[in-house]
Structures are given as structure tokens and as C-alpha cells.
């Protein structure tokens, strides 16, 4: 494939498959593919231990481009396929590739249950706020009023705030990154990889054909500092080159100017383990064009170590074997009550 983000090409990376990558030139997906391949290589995993499961959509072609095990499923159902796979193969490294339509519209019911069960999988949610593969209809994350081929007068739907939904479903690893910041993406993905449970990373991904520039305000060098907030565990929430910060006063977040009146010590200190603060953080979701809007947070919002679903399932099987002994088929067929004739 062609060069991506200027420097390296994916052919050089061990994890690439022999398949030609067929996303549109300039698609944000290339950047994500490259960061994932780099991470896999750096993590020291064996190719055969890694499985990529996807649904349907542009992003869901992802598994074909990696020399790992891969299953390109059906629309929206990747979380269910993952749940079954993880239940029986807890030792594998499982990744799920999905998009805003796949995960939040047709697969909305499955993603929330994946999260509440805490199945151990790294979910990369490519959010481009548009339907790409079906050629440009609005998605469940498109802002209200979005004009598309299916909404010539603008969409009438209120969009999802994806990470608030994830938080509402008790996700145990909640993070956001963007295609145009490869270093940040790689760091977030590495964190997601080591988390045991459902690691959900929303990745802002530019669809340069049907929704070009949807996230430009967050990715453009000029506007990025004032409109983004990169959170780090134990560090104060500051942005705009350290000139502004966010504090919590009377249970609400406020933007403050760092200077004579406030120091970074007055800011909200990010704590990934703080359930309630995470609930506020995911709600920093203002329309960037509105005066005084909160910056959009990026990074790891929340981490919780509750046990994974498959660990609990396997523990029950183990316990049943300990208590009842390994299955004796003859005893099973015989059942509890028999009688003999002759």
C-alpha cells in the first residue's frame, strides 16, 4: 500500500497481510491500521494469538489487512461473536473493529451488553459521523441538522454521545483518540490492550469523501489547542497550551484562566479510577462552534478492574467440575431415576 502519514509503510510491518488495502485514498482508516500494526509488533504478541472480529462498514474490512486470525461478521453483531469466542478462548488477544453505524445503530443492543458483561476485548470504534460504505447517509453520531443524501433538509435525530453511552453501560475502560494524532492513538491503544475487560476506544476518523473535516476543529493545528483537552492520570486538566484549565465547583465543571488568579493546582486533577468524575468527563461534549464551549477531552477517561465475563463463566465450569467431577456421559444419560425390565 501507499505511504501513510509520511514516514513508514505498512508492508514493512510483520502483521500486514498480503491483501491490498481498499479504503479510499486519504481515509483516516489507514492511520489507525498503521498504529494497530505497530502496536501489535511492539507488544511482542504472536500473530496466531491475535483475532480481529468486525461487523459491516468501511472499518470492518480491517481484519483482512492483518496477518492474524480474522472474522468479518455481519452488521452490528461483532460484539455477540466476540462474546462467544471469548467465552471459550480466554487466552487469545481479541480485537473488535466497528464504526458509528455498526456499533451504535444496528448493533446498539449488542454493544451495551458487551460493556455491562465486561467481555475482555479491545473495541476500536471508528467514529466518522457518517455512513461511508452505503455512500453518505447520516449516522447516529451525526449532529442534528446534518445534510446528507438521506436528509436533504437536515437530520432530525439527536445524536448519541458515544462515550456517555459507554459510561452508562458501565464500560470498564473508556478512552478517546483521533486518527490525526498517531502518537496519542498508539499510547491509548497500548493502554487498551493491557486492560482486562472491554476496552472501548472511540477514534475520531475523518471520512474525506462523505464527511470531510468533521473533526477538523479538534485536529487542525490552529484550533486544536483551544478545543481539545488531553487528559492524563494524576495531572491537572489544562489546555490551550496550559493557559486554561477546568475546575469543579459546586459539582459542575468550569473553565478557568491559569494566571494570577488560578494555578494548575486549582484544576481538576484527572483520576482514571474516579467513577463520578468520569461521568462528568464524558459529558464534556459541547458543540465546538458555540462560544465558551468546553474543549473535547481525549485520552483514557476511566479504568475499572472488575472481573471479566469469561473469567466468571470459566470459574463456574471449573467449580462444577470440582464439585461434580468431570462429566460422566453414562451417568448423564442414565439420569436420576431408572427402572429395569426383564
Amino acid at each position, binding site marked *: 500500500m501507499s505511504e501513510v502519514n509520511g514516514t513508514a509503510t505498512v508492508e514493512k510491518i510483520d502483521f500486514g*497481510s498480503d*491483501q491490498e488495502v481498499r479504503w479510499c485514498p486519504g481515509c483516516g482508516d489507514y492511520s489507525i491500521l498503521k498504529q494497530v500494526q505497530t502496536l501489535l509488533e511492539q507488544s511482542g504478541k*504472536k*500473530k*496466531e*494469538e491475535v*483475532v480481529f*472480529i468486525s461487523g459491516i462498514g468501511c472499518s470492518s474490512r480491517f*481484519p*483482512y489487512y492483518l*496477518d*492474524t*486470525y*480474522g*472474522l*468479518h*461478521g*455481519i452488521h452490528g*453483531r461483532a*460484539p*455477540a*461473536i*466476540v*462474546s*462467544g*469466542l*471469548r*467465552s*471459550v*478462548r480466554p*487466552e*487469545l488477544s481479541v480485537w473488535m473493529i466497528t464504526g458509528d453505524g455498526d456499533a451504535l445503530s444496528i448493533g446498539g*443492543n*449488542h454493544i*451495551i*451488553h458487551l460493556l455491562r458483561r465486561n467481555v475482555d476485548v479491545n473495541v476500536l470504534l471508528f467514529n466518522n459521523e457518517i455512513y461511508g460504505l452505503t455512500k453518505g447517509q447520516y449516522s447516529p453520531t451525526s449532529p442534528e441538522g446534518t445534510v446528507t443524501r438521506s436528509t436533504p433538509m437536515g437530520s432530525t435525530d439527536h445524536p448519541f454521545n458515544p462515550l456517555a453511552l459507554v459510561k452508562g453501560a458501565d464500560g470498564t475502560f473508556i478512552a478517546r483518540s483521533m486518527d490525526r494524532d498517531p502518537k496519542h492513538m498508539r499510547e491509548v491503544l497500548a493502554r487498551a490492550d493491557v486492560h482486562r475487560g472491554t476496552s472501548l476506544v472511540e477514534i475520531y476518523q475523518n471520512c474525506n469523501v462523505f464527511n470531510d473535516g468533521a473533526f477538523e476543529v479538534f485536529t487542525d493545528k490552529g484550533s486544536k489547542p483551544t478545543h481539545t483537552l488531553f487528559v492524563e492520570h494524576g495531572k491537572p486538566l489544562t489546555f490551550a497550551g496550559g493557559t486554561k484549565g477546568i475546575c469543579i465547583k459546586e459539582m459542575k465543571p468550569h473553565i478557568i484562566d491559569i494566571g494570577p488568579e488560578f494555578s494548575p493546582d486549582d484544576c481538576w486533577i484527572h483520576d482514571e479510577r474516579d467513577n463520578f468524575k468520569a461521568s462528568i468527563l464524558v459529558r464534556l461534549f459541547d458543540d465546538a462552534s458555540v462560544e465558551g464551549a468546553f474543549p473535547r477531552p481525549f485520552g483514557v477517561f476511566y479504568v475499572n478492574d472488575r472481573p471479566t465475563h469469561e473469567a466468571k*463463566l470459566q470459574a*463456574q*465450569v471449573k*467449580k*462444577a*467440575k470440582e*464439585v*461434580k*467431577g*468431570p*462429566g460422566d*456421559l*453414562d451417568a*448423564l*444419560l*442414565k*439420569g436420576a*431415576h*431408572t*427402572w*429395569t*425390565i*426383564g
Partner: protein
Amino acid sequence: MTQTLIKKPVEARQNVVILFAGDSGDGIQLTGSQFTDTNALFGNDVSTFPNFPAEIRAPQGTLAGVSGYQLHFGSVEIFTPGDLCDVLVVMNAAALKANLIKLKKGGTIIANTDGFDKKNLRLAGYIDEADPLTDGSLVNFHLHSVDVTKLTRTALEGMTLGMKEKDRCKNMFVLGFINWMYSRENALTEAFLDRKFGKKPELLEANRKALVAGYNYGETSETFTTRFEVKAAPMPKGTYRSITGNQGTALGLVAGAQKAKLDLFYGSYPITPASDILHELSKHKNFGVITFQAEDEIAAISSAIGASYGGALGITASSGPGIALKTEAMGLAFMLEIPLVIVNVQRGGPSTGLPTKTEQADLWQAVHGRNGEAPIPVIAASTPIDCFDMAFEAVQLAIEHMTPVILLTDGYIANGSEPWRFPNAKDLPEIKPPYIKEPNDGEKFLPYLRDERGVRPWALPGQAGLQHRIGGIEKQDRTGNISYDPENHAKMVHLRAEKVARIADRYKPIRLDSGPTEGEVLVVGWGSTYGAIRTAALQLQAEGMSVAHVHVRHMFPFNKGLGPLLKKYKKVLVPEMNSGQLRQMLRAEYLVDAQGLNKIQGMPFTSEEIRAGILNLLKS
């Protein structure tokens, strides 16, 4: 006191059909199943038909709330729960009203008089609250009115239980009485009560007392002058247990997984009448069984696909409406070519239909119900025991041919039970998954390189050098890579269909169930109509008619012997609990003028209905 009694005479009966009926909260199913177990243990052949409302506690006393349990037991071989009953036990007026039509002329009614008060009569719809127990309308039957409620309360006098709890022991009084009437011991039920109420001594004592009181009532009451006895049936020697169809299905699935040395993953969403498979499987985790109660039917099958992809045996089950939701994922499993078993415990349709009633109307859904050309093997079970055999075969076909397989059962056999001379585990065949351990094309691995049967290898994640990508999108022959090439698509459609068609190569030769190898009429049945058709065919053969019966187990692909067999008879009759689905398939496949005998009432055929249908065809 008992010493002074004169022993009442005992009359022998060859076979008896008894129907217990009452409110869905009356414990009817328990009474029926306990009497069944007692008779089976005694050595009778038995067949049962539980019939209950969709509502858990439908309005008390109404026709809609009537729950029934029909049992046919005999000293001869029994194939059905019986057409009409000899004895009707009714706990209230609604139960009588709903079931009188099923009682033979001259049959016996045992009625709980407490259930015939004005309110119950009104709720049951007796005009002007006319009491059938006293108005002479039942003159053609042997009517025994018994105040079960009062007698039970009397038996439990002095116990500290509340009246409601005492009244819940009524069913044990009835059971004790029926045990007496048919010369059966209370012992089996007493042991059952010990297990059930072991931790609640007071309830245990109350239920045991009611059971004994019912038995003694038969002994002492002057209204009952005769007892009956049904001798043991000449059943083949061996050890038996009782099994319902859903239990049979669950055990067949576990046995299949064990014989394939695979863990079993069962993805399921609760639905009537399939949920008991989930309940049964969830008890057997020590066999490496994982049950996953999914968020919906789609997730149930998709999770099973994920499990099969990981190297377990993925299974899902549902009933018609749930199967409809699984359709897209079945297409995926078909395209992936991985093992998957899909069980449809059919119920009355369409849409929500008749959840607790039975039907065979999902045959076309199973055979044809997918987008694109996606043939999936479809097999059907004919009796509760056969559910075990067919579930095992479904696992065998799915694993050894790398394909989803649909197993059709229905509510009638799923809930019905019969005695089962269960097999030894060692006599069940081993199932051999087509695993692959190393690349199959030099250093490359081709996931869709097929063997001589057209079956692709099963490469499990985790194996070095076998990394590959599969999906629902059309794939290139051999490599599995995405391909939109027109010629390749035609080839792949053909290869996939061919693989499934060749499953028929392994079937045993088709075999008549009964009757001459050529002649006037061939009755072609499938699924749960087996018992009714067998009974009718045997009768007519005994009467000298040229009637044969074949029962189709493989709905798709058909047994290769079926076509030639159909041509050996002048007429072909296809009884089905639908409007003629198998009949149309036979006509389309074999250009045979098959006639239909169809019943779509949510109720199984009686053997009398089948008999009449055959006689009609013989006359025409």
C-alpha cells in the same frame, strides 16, 4: 378400621388414557408427571401430552386458564398420548367444559365439587350457572363428584399451615386417589416429595398426608366399587428412564459434544417452548458446557458462531419467531462453513402465534428461509426419544461437514415424555472434527481447500502458520480472500450447495416404518405426527389394507431412496400440522401427486383423524 373392609374387586385394562385438568395454578402438570413416572416405573409403556396456557397464571376459573396433562399408559406398546380419554379428572368447571369433548362415551369423570360453585360455573360460561354435576347433563358418563378441597382440608386438620397452603395439597389428594384407582403405590411420589420438600418439613408432611388421604379415600369411599389394573407392557429388557423431548435434545447435544471431545457453547434467548433446553444444559457445566443467555436471538446465534470459530461446538435453539431473527446469522455460518446446530422447537405461528401450542409450519422457513442460495441441512425428530438421536446426528453432521444444521422438533414432543432405554456412551459413534494442524498448500494455508466430500478444514485460532480471514462476503475459491469475480461466485455457490447435497451420501438406506413395500397408499410423515400415523397404519394393516408408512427424518437434503419409494404406491398421503409444506416439497422434487392431510389447530393429530384420512384416500 381398614381390616374390616372388604377388598374391592380389581378389573384388568389393556391401556388407559387419563386427562388431568384444572387451573394453571392447580399443580396439574406435577400430578400428571408423577402418575406417569409411577406407571413407567411399574413397567407400562407411556406417552404424555402436557397442554397448558401461554399465561403463567391466567385468570382463575376461566377456560383460558385451563391446564391439562394427558397420559396414555398400557400393557401394550403405546405410540401416542391417546385420542380420547377414558378418565377425565377436573378440578373445576372450566376444566370440564374445555375437556369434555375429549372424553369417550361412557368414560369416567372425577370432579372436584368445590370447583363447581356459582362463581366457577359463571366463569366457565355455564348458562344460568347450571351445574353439570347435578343437572343430569352428564348422564352418559360415569360421574364421581368428590369434594377434594374439603377432604384435603380435613386430612390436614390441626396443622399450622394457612388455608392457602393446605389447598395447594389438593393435587396430592387427587394423585393418591388415582394411585388407588389404578392399583399403584404412593412410594415413588413420596420419595419425590421427600426430595422436593426435604427442607420444609411442614409442607412435606402436609403433602404426604394429602397423598395418603386420597389413597385411603378410594379404599373407604362407597362410591368407588372397582379398581383397575394395567399390567406391565412387554417392553424390551433393559434399564429405562423417563425423558421429555427437550431433555432428549439437550442430552443429545451434550453427548455429541462429548463424542467430538469439544466444549459446548449454548447461546440462547428464553422462548416458549425451547427454554427447557437452556435450563437442562445449564445444569451440566461439568461437561464443559457454557450457557450464555444472550441479549436477544441474534446475539444468541452470533455468540454461538463466535464459539464455533474459537473451536467449541456452538449451538443455539429457539422457536419460530426467534428463528426468524437468527436468519441472517445462519447465512453467515453457512458462508463461514463452520459447525453450528440450530434447534427450532416449533410452535403455532405466524408471528407470536400460539406460543404453547404445537405446529409443523416452520419447515419452509428452515429449508428456504435465507437470503441468497444458502442450503442448510434440516433434520426432524419424531418422538421425545428421537430428539436425542436427532440432536446427536445434528452435531455429527455439523462438525464432520463444517456446516450449520437445523434440527426441527415441536412443542408436542418437546414437552411430551416416554420411557427411554438409554444407550451406553461407548455405543455412540465418535465424531471427528476435520481439524488441520499445518499449512495445506506448501507453506501457505488455504482455508477453503476442500476434501473429497467438499468439506473445508477447521483451523482454530492460536495455531501458528494458519492465520486466515473469513467472512460473510463472497470469497475466492480456496484462499477465502474477498472476491467479486462473477465466475468465482457461480463456482462458490455451486461448491457450497454440492457440499450440503453430498451429506445424503452418508444416510442409512430409507426404511419403511410399517406396511408393504409397494401397494395402494404410502403415508409420508415427518416429525411429531409419528405416533398417530404409526397407530393408524398398524390398525389398517391389521384390517388387511394396503397401507405403508414412511417417516422422513432428513428434510433436506432428502434421503436418496425417498423418490423411488414414492413411485411404488398408487397414492401418497402426507399428514402435516401445516397447510402442506412437505407435500409441496415432495411434489416439486419428485413430480409425485402427493395428497395432503392437514391440521392447523395447535393440537396434534389423533390417530383416528389419520385413519379417516387414509380411508378417504383409499375410497377416492
